[in-house]
């Protein structure tokens, strides 16, 4: 039996004021590439912060607003959290301008999670497009930290161009890990690019995993996820073995604002991670 996605244990459900952010301090703000940066944040109150891979927070830029941002990693020793953010508009721009020592508002964690700890014994296929690697990274790190408990681990990463690839140093590290197949593909290569060229979903056909005993976790643009599912199905993978994450406009993250609805699902609460067989009916509808 394929496991379900991991629902938010909602450590904060009892919260009296689920819309009230908490102050977190910027430890570092580093550019990953020309438009994407990673904020390392430390909780002002110092308390512990538990989350599951795939969950997200609402980050508040002073006077500008909030954005849903996935947790892209955590440092267990210091208790700091990482958020990797593409600068696209008002709020993400405000966040990009933060300096170490500044504070942001943070609410979370929200949403469902990749069920990595329920997939022991299987091959894992991670498929990321662009910034989609950020929400997958905690799951990949978890799998690698428990390497012996899984079969093959395949990590397929796509980006528009070499300079759009996020976490290149960490990807190199993964590439060097025994029993981990890491492939990166870009749509538009530069002369010095030595890896694959073309859409990331082209890599699925040749990847080494057993479709009858594996699970795929996909995060990227919807069109890319559609093709990834097609390719996985072609390899014989069942819809129930495919997990994907969705994005919709989100104003509250707690099921009050109504914006993130997609069919009967509230992306903030029932998602963002879905098991594809449960979600299929809604995923295939235009303008829903």
């Amino acid at each position, binding site marked *: 039996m394929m496991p379900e996605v991991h629902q938010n244990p*909602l450590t904060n*459900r009892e*919260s*009296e*004021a*689920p*819309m*009230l*952010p*908490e*102050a977190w*301090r910027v430890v570092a703000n580093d550019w990953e590439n020309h438009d994407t940066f990673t904020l390392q944040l430390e909780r*002002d109150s110092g308390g512990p912060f538990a989350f599951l891979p795939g969950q997200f927070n609402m980050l*508040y830029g*002073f*006077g*500008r*607003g*909030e954005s849903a941002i996935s947790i892209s990693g955590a440092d267990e020793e210091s208790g700091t959290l990482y958020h990797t953010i593409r600068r*696209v*508009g008002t709020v993400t721009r405000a966040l990009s301008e933060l300096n170490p*020592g*500044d*504070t*942001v*508002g943070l609410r979370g964690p929200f949403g469902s999670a990749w069920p990595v700890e329920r997939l022991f014994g299987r091959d894992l296929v991670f498929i990321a497009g662009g910034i989609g690697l950020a929400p997958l990274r905690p799951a990949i790190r978890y799998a690698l930290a428990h390497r012996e408990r899984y079969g093959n681990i395949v990590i397929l990463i796509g980006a528009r161009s070499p300079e759009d690839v996020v976490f290149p140093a960490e990807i190199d590290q993964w590439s060097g890990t025994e029993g981990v197949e890491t492939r990166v593909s870009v749509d538009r290569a530069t002369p010095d690019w030595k890896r694959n060229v073309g859409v990331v979903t082209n890599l699925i056909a040749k990847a080494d995993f057993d479709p009858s005993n594996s699970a795929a976790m996909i995060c990227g643009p919807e069109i890319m996820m559609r093709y990834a599912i097609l390719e996985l199905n072609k390899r014989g993978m069942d819809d129930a073995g495919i997990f994907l994450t969705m*994005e*919709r*406009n989100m*104003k*509250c993250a*707690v*099921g*009050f*604002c*109504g*914006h993130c*609805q997609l*069919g*009967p699902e*509230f992306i903030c*609460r029932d998602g963002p991670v879905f098991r594809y067989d449960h979600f299929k*009916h809604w995923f295939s*509808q*235009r*303008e*829903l």
Partner: protein
Amino acid sequence: MREEPQILQRADFGALFTALQSRGFTVVGPTVVDQAIVYEELDSVEDLPIGWTDEQDAGRYRLRRRDDEALFGYVVGPQSWKQFFHPPHVKLFGASRDREGALRFESSNEETPRFAFLGARSCELHGMAIQDRVFLGSGYVDSEYAGRRENSFTIAVNCGQAGGTCFCTSMNTGPKVDAGIPHDLALTEILDEERHYFVVTVGSEAGRELLSELPTVPAAGPETRAADELVAKTAREMGRTMNPKGVKELLYQNLEHPRWEELADRCLTCANCTMVCPTCFCTTVEDVTDLTGENAERWRRWDSCFTIDFSYLHGGSVRQSAKSRYRQWLTHKFATWQDQFGSSGCVGCGRCITWCPVGIDVTEEIAAIREEP
């Protein structure tokens, strides 16, 4: 809560206001403003729409004089009670920078008002119960809503007539105020040749306590029978009907029905229907900063799935076409709501039909989709 129904004479109705006001409640109820019956703060019984009734049809609402002095001789107007629990505009928090430049967050700590709602109809009580499931019953709790709800006192009214766009019997939400739906007191207004009185039943402990202070006498058989017959008559007079059977599956299977395109030609995407609907709950947020730049506030205000920005994602909105936005609304109300909150999102109040400028009628649309394309 079973209790002998009581009789409150029309001449003693003022005592109800006094009892509520002496308990610190602000009485809110129907009153005539700009040719419509709206819900506002009331000082006395004289503020009620005495002797008025309403005529409603798709895209049409008119007030008309009755030939009696009934206090509740009309149905529901353009507003619902949701504005008092789920205010159209509410402050979520204030943020400020302290001396070191660090942000401090403070929730809005305005005092929660204490409202007594006079004249809520059965469909409206169901509407409140539906919003309760949204804001209190599905994981997180909205503290603003919870506080306002907890502080309130509700005096319901059984409908003595149905409106031209009402279909509560189809949705199983009225016209009679059932004991199972949360309220404190329920009134049935009876006017006959000689008398004008109210049959009062108790819905809660707080209701019992308040009733004990009113100058009432136990109702006799003929009086309670008159009250029962009146709502039974109302139930037979519904201006609209709808077959709710299997409507969820119907809409799930018809996301590409040609009717949606046809609807899109008529719908102005004005969002009136979502504003008047007692269960629609969607909101957006607004961020403001003061002139010093040291203080910011975040506000929440009502929003509608009919706006193009509602589904905005970097790069463009998901629901571009009017078709997709109308489909979202209707499918949410009648279908996905059931999966989300365990009931229909429609209580059959008819407001969206009456207040649609082009007279789109949800009962007609669902019937059309039910017919084979």
